[in-house]
């Protein structure tokens, strides 16, 4: 307060001067890092890759998803956004372009077009940036079926209905260069989605989503990095981890050996509540997603392909209770049940977390995860994480 009073006369004086025309370029940086204690680092669940961007939290210190974003209205017709993400694993730091898209502002009739590289509108979480999540890592099905999150180069057309009940329909077409797609076709993945939402009184809001992602997979174009076979040398010293890795291999098959269509259906629902709709002091968020993935085509095996038809399932439910302006606790359960061809490798994870937000711009989170695998692995994972934002305040999606 003393400080504010000292600033007051200065502020009043400066208010007399004309405020500088504010540049419309938004620059924001997200610093995300942590320290994780765990017994083993799972590479995959039944062949689905868990490593890499948005995957399982690595042991020790990590910097994942440190991002730098630029966004602005390009002119009166277009908006543009560029997001680069730094990820480091196995001692290497990579810069990845996560978003580079333009979005129309002035199409008539509630239509919009987005083009470039962007996060696909698959389910609820996929189109959101990981730093806005309530947990340090994405739920198991998002890691297994979407490689943490699916973004690709392509185009989106969407339409918002002129109704009081929120209804959005959209279609996306992508190059198919990122997992779960691995395509050499011109259009390697398509996605159809519908979002429906509304309010119940002043205190409650809800949204449900349905999406259908069809991805083309071709071993010649596979970029999924779970089955890097040079890997064993790198982890020689890690006895426990290696054991788990080998066991997964015995049962699993190579995700990159699949040739065919990978269809992913995701149904999602989110419900938020705050007393009187005032989110400053208390709020409750419940969300859940259900995934059904069907692979139909062929699987490589000893230099030949054999027919392959698999249905895998996954899902999660989470709750986050903000009980004071600065404190939130959360719980989550998630599972992935790969199809029979991937072996009996059902995986479940139970998470509990507590986070402290000093201001709107800083979060420190402690998360405990219990991972259980049908192949006989269990792990207790403890993570201490920070997420801090620099620069412009970006608006959060629902």
């Amino acid at each position, binding site marked *: 307060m003393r400080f504010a009073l000292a600033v007051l006369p200065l*502020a009043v004086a400066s*208010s007399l001067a004309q405020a500088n025309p504010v540049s419309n370029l938004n620059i924001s940086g997200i610093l995300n890092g942590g320290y994780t204690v765990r017994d083993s680092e799972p590479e995959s669940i039944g062949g689905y890759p868990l490593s890499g961007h948005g995957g399982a939290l690595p042991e020790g210190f990590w910097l994942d998803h440190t991002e730098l974003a630029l966004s602005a209205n390009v002119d009166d017709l277009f908006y543009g956004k560029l997001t680069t993400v730094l990820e480091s694993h196995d001692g290497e730091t990579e810069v990845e372009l996560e978003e580079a898209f333009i979005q129309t502002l002035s199409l008539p009739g509630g239509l919009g077009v987005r083009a470039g590289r962007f996060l696909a509108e698959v389910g609820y979480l996929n189109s959101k940036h990981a730093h806005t999540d309530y947990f340090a890592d994405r739920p198991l099905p998002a890691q297994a079926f979407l490689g943490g999150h699916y973004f690709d180069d392509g185009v989106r057309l969407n339409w918002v209905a002129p109704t009081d009940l929120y209804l959005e329909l959209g279609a996306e077409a992508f190059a198919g260069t990122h997992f779960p797609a691995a395509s050499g076709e011109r259009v390697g993945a398509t996605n159809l989605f519908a979002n429906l*939402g509304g309010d119940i009184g002043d205190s409650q809001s809800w949204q449900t989503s349905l999406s259908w992602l069809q991805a083309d997979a071709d071993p010649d174009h596979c970029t999924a990095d779970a089955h890097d076979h040079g890997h064993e040398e790198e982890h020689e010293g890690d006895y426990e981890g290696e054991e788990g890795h080998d066991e997964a291999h015995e049962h699993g098959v190579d995700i990159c050996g699949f040739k065919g269509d990978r269809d992913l259906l995701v149904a999602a629902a989110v419900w938020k509540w705050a007393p009187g709709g*005032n*989110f400053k002091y208390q709020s409750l968020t419940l969300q859940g997603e259900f995934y059904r993935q069907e692979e139909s085509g062929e699987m490589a095996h000893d230099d030949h392909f054999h027919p392959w038809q698999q249905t895998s399932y996954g899902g999660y439910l989470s709750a986050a209770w903000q009980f004071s302006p600065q404190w939130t606790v959360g719980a989550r359960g998630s599972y992935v049940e790969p199809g029979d061809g991937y072996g009996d490798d059902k995986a479940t994870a139970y998470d509990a977390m507590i986070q402290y937000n000093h201001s709107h*711009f800083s979060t420190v989170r402690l998360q405990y995860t219990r991972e259980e695998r049908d192949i006989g692995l269990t792990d207790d994972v403890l993570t201490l994480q920070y997420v801090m934002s620099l620069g412009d305040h970006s608006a959060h999606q629902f």
Partner: protein
Amino acid sequence: MRTSSNLWWLLLAAIVAGPAQASLRIFACEPEWAALARELMPEATIDVATTARQDPHFVQARPSLIAKVRQADLAVCTGAELEIGWLPALLIKANNSALTPAGQGLFYAADQVEKLDVMAHVDRSMGDVHAGGNPHIHLSPERVLLVADALALRLQQLAPAESAAIASRLADFRQRWLAAMQRWQQQGQPLQGMRLVAYHSSYRYLFDWLKIEQVGDLEPKPGLPPTSGHLASLLAQLKSQPPQAIVHTPYQEAQAAEWLSEQLQVPALMLPYTVDEDKVVDLFALYDQLLTALGPLAANHAAG
């Protein structure tokens, strides 16, 4: 001077009025702007994004609001970064070509007036400070008048057929508002120089107008909730010369104000902050109730 030139514009706009048009659909970010729009265009369909019980800084960019923004001809918001955490997300998701920076459909009240506490230098270590100045401008009656002028002009551009009607409603509103301002000024006279503690800088403009001094803020820094450490230091600082009262808005928790009020033996008041459905029916009622609530403190002030 400003008034008469505005009236000329309104008259001119009324003369060149275009063909009749269905009434406008207006998306108001806060209840105060919904109330102002209703004064000028009562037949418009007006959606309000927030209630008097919601902190306008912390609103969810929820589906129902996207649906409302989608259908609006005009969005009337405060601006000055008040809605920065949610309005941009609504605008980008709603695909409404009328509400683009280039269109006529975005109206920011704070852009129409001079703001207090504009910062030449802003650092996040100072808290969640708005570089463009304090956005709670509807608690300055003079600024409300300027916003009304500008909003009337914008409504006339969007609904030329209604121009004459809007002009006459603006003239009527101005007359009633100026008369009310005289009354409020008189009521507020004894409050001059009064010292208050408030939560955040929500009443910055009202205090500026009534020449009330805010001697303490329950927030340690703007946007941060009250802490026991900060309240203890406020108590130490104010013990020798306690304020007349501790005030907060309906969307701010009363706990901190009540604790300090007990310690200092001064009243804690929840003041109205904005128009609130049937409790505070319009902008006139808002100021009437604010001055009625603050009035009894004047006696203590005079005595002290």
